[in-house]
């Protein structure tokens, strides 16, 4: 084995190296999951409790209003819950990934490993939460006597992939930017709050009154993912063509985030 340490220039990710470090990736993920609920009395129950409470609040306040404006066969609580679960993957994933370089600065400065592991770990953790919350979703379906259509089997993977790609792209971009500009510590929570209003999580996109705004919001990949999931639940046709601009945007984000991350990662240890 022979290798060289030189000034860094190349842009391509060394995926073989990431693969060699798969165990570290596993241990970081395991650490984050383990720590998240350490010393909490309710532990993993928190994963289902948060969306459950959110759902109840939204149902109580907007339930009747939305019901009169949608013709969907999907009961409103399930409509909200489905959106919330995907939204949580995005919002928790983005905030974890964005902060990952800062929270692990002490490790970055003392040891080498592919830095890519850290933001990806940040995204994997809420992804696990999502699978636990699916149990909540299944119970809710039983409670409201709703049987999802079989289309869900491909709608869910498509929706999740869009969310993951978007979160990873934005997460990589912001995590590398935040090494240099700590402003992102304040920007990210703010951004997530604003995006919650601009994403059809608690309302159907049809409710937006302005045509031009609607056109713009259709570019939102998370919105697209949520609508694909809902269509899969009710056996409505999944309009991938309609959502293709949003899907392309999410892929573009991954490309931009990935290349910016790659071009700056060597200097994280000097700046963090």
């Amino acid at each position, binding site marked *: 084995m022979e290798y060289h*340490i030189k000034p860094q220039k190349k842009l391509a990710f060394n995926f073989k190296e990431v693969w060699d470090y798969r165990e570290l990736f596993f241990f970081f993920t395991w650490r984050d999951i383990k720590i998240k609920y350490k010393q909490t009395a309710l532990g993993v129950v928190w994963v289902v409790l948060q969306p459950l409470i959110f759902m109840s609040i939204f149902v109580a306040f907007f339930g009747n209003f939305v019901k009169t404006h949608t013709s969907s066969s999907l009961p409103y609580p399930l409509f909200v819950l489905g959106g919330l679960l995907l939204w949580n993957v995005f919002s928790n994933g983005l905030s974890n990934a964005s902060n990952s370089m800062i929270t692990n600065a002490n*490790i970055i400065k*003392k*040891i080498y490993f592919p830095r890519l592991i850290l933001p990806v770990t940040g995204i994997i953790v809420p992804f696990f939460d999502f699978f636990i919350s699916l149990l909540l979703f299944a119970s809710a379906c039983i409670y409201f006597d709703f049987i999802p259509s079989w289309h869900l089997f491909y709608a869910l993977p498509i929706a999740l992939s869009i969310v993951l790609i978007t979160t990873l792209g934005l997460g990589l971009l912001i995590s590398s930017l935040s090494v240099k500009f700590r402003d992102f510590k304040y920007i990210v929570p703010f951004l997530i709050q604003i995006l919650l209003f601009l994403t059809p999580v608690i309302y159907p996109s049809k409710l937006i009154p302005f045509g031009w705004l609607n056109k713009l919001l259709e570019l939102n990949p998370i919105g697209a993912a949520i609508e694909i999931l809902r269509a899969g639940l009710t056996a409505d046709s999944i309009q991938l063509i309609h959502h293709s601009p949003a899907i392309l945007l999410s892929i573009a984000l991954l490309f931009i985030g990935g290349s910016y991350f790659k071009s700056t990662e060597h200097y994280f240890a000097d700046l963090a």
Partner: protein
Amino acid sequence: MKPLLEIKEISKSYKLLHEQQSYLSLRDILSKPSQFFKKNSTEVFNALDSVSFEVMQGESIGIIGKNGAGKSTLLKILSKITPPTSGTITSRGRIASLLEVGTGFHPELSGRENIFLNGSILGMKRKEILAKFDEIVDFSSVEKFLDTPLKHYSSGMQLRLAFAVAAFLEPEILIIDEVLAVGDAEFQRKCINKMDSITHHEGRTILIVSHNMSVLKKLCSRAIMLQKGKVLMNADANTVIDTYLKQSIEDNPRIKKGNSKITVNDIEIFDQSHNRITSFHTFDSVNFVLNCTASQDFDKVSIALCFNNMDEVRISSLWSKLTNQLFDIKAGPFKVHFNIPCIQLIPGEYNLVTYIDSNGYELEQVENFKLITVSFKPGNGYITEPGKSQALYLENFNMKIID
């Protein structure tokens, strides 16, 4: 055989940002909008400047130098944490670096969990950790608290656990930064012995940065001295370390304590035939003459001349009080003669220390008074082993063999 590590003209420069003003207020920007875009002045700082050396399989190399010489930057580049600005390093083995003990330790996780996390961060495979788990626990001696969260550990226990994990790393090349000084005296000895066996018995290649010169002498075969980012010296460990210590002692001014009512102005050294000398041989007859000045009369004065080795350890003291000699001194200059018929210092460099008191009340103590060099007389049949460890030979002993 090709060297395991080839370091070729490695340089690393940092841009230092000089912020012109402590902060820029909104009012400043409104009154002079150009200020906002004004570049802060920058200066390039070369932490490493064209460093080159080679490391062969099985060598243990100490890297020494003052603070800011570039030691840690070199280790950071070798461990790929930061890339060099120019130059290349060719490595023919797996490098593991230990720039800090317990990197990534998490206070909420138990000792057991932290062993796995830290081991994995240091580059061990899960299988390796499992295989060595018992040894690691045994070495750290924290088995009783293995399932307690780390935050309840004492800092000493945390350090022991951290070092234990690191001690079982088995890369071809191990890079260590000033982490030997952990734990209590007993644990330190354990660590140093472990390091010793890694370097001498297992034949692993090691690069160590440390300020503990006696440990480096024990562990290293070769040493590299860095100064202001450049390699100043690259030779066998004892030679480099002694040069470094000599230099740092020469750079250090004499450290004076006391009120200097009696002060030693100078120390002269004479041989048997009263010729003034600057160095001498082991077992020579030597006279030390201290030229002193007393500012007033003193009674019951005792005077000491001591020898420190390069590790700042006191080797010997010639103290008049121990021979029950107390003097009455009149104001003015006076000379003190110390005659040593057979000086038993092992070859090496020593530092003179003087001490004067009156009625048990300290008047003056001077550290780093003067550096002296002792060597073997050429051609007397002894094997010259300069600077291995400076100490005293004892000659007054009897030896018998009893069946």
